[in-house]
């Protein structure tokens, strides 16, 4: 019965020609029965060709929408094609596709609507700047307080979603800082979330160029967005 479920791995990619092919190949290696969908978010490099060559389905957005719009396009595809489970994996290679079966297993066994791959529980050792860890821990506290459940890694984009979540996201997905906001959205719609420990590597290409000032700016904006979300109306 487990093998009859249709699984889609959504890989958003913006200027990731250097890593997207490898990510798709690894996804196919560790989860051969899933389809890989690369959402090319208006890249001007060869992201689309590289993804196509590695055997992924490629969804080309006509211009850059940002991570929220790109991810939602992926969920819309999943919804239209009737997928039962969708998994988000970043196109820059910071998520290890080897961990996908773990997310999948938790989603099915715990019967939750979303599983988050967390860098901060269990034996996973994640090294990053002090600033970033402080920021994540503040998010973690605020989100945990709002949703009434301990969420250790609200900014992780390594996630698995049930068909109910797919349906919700196809119609309603936050735009600017989707990862933390999604948790509030799910809570408001009464959907359940679980976390599993995963290891994450550094990005293959490019650095996360978040300086101190910018990370504070980012944090204030996300907190504001979360605050505003608490007043939004959702129909589900």
């Amino acid at each position, binding site marked *: 019965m487990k093998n009859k479920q249709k699984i889609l791995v959504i890989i958003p990619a913006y200027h990731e020609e250097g890593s997207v092919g490898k990510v798709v190949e690894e996804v196919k290696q560790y989860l051969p029965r899933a389809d890989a969908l690369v*959402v090319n978010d208006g890249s001007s490099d060869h992201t689309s060709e590289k993804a196509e060559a590695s055997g992924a*389905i*490629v*969804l*080309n*957005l*006509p*211009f850059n*929408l940002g991570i929220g*719009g790109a991810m*939602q*396009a992926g969920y*819309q*595809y999943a919804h*239209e094609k009737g997928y039962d489970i969708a998994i988000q994996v970043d196109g820059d290679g910071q998520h290890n596709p080897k961990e996908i079966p773990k997310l999948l297993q938790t989603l099915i066994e715990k019967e939750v609507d979303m599983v988050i791959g967390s860098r901060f529980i269990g034996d996973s050792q994640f090294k990053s700047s002090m600033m970033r860890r402080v920021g994540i821990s503040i998010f973690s506290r605020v989100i945990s307080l709002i949703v009434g459940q301990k969420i250790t890694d609200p900014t992780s984009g390594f996630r698995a979603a049930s068909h109910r979540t797919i349906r919700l996201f196809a119609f309603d997905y936050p*735009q600017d800082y989707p990862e933390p906001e999604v948790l509030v959205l799910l809570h408001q719609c009464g959907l359940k979330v679980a976390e599993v420990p995963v290891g994450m590597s550094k990005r293959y290409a490019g650095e996360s160029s978040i300086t101190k000032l910018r990370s504070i700016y980012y944090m204030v904006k996300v907190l504001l967005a979360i605050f505003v979300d608490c007043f939004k109306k959702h129909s589900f």
Partner: protein
Amino acid sequence: MLIKIQLFIGTLSIILLFITFELIRKKKLREEYSLLWLFTGAVILIFSIWPEYFLSRFFSQITGIFYLSAVVLLAFLFLLLIVFHFSVVISKLTDRNKELAQRHALLELEFREFRNSHPHSQNPSNQNG
């Protein structure tokens, strides 16, 4: 002093009205905005023609401020309203733009898959299939 300010504001409002008319004539301004700007121009014009009856007596009695400040305040309030209206419109447009982009991408993918699975059903006039 007052007559100078009146002339200045009167001229401004006439220029505003003229530009609005021109844009409407050339169909470069949508009706919803043209009405807003025509109304704004007309109100400013009225204030410049009858400042004492309309403002010094009526408005400053209520607010206790003088003509120029009253006009500036009113203009500011108008601009605030207009800018606010624009943010609402831009938000709506951005949303629709996003939805269009997503729909476009999904349809394009569907089309590519369809064409790949039906290689013989191509339109003969389409040369780069």
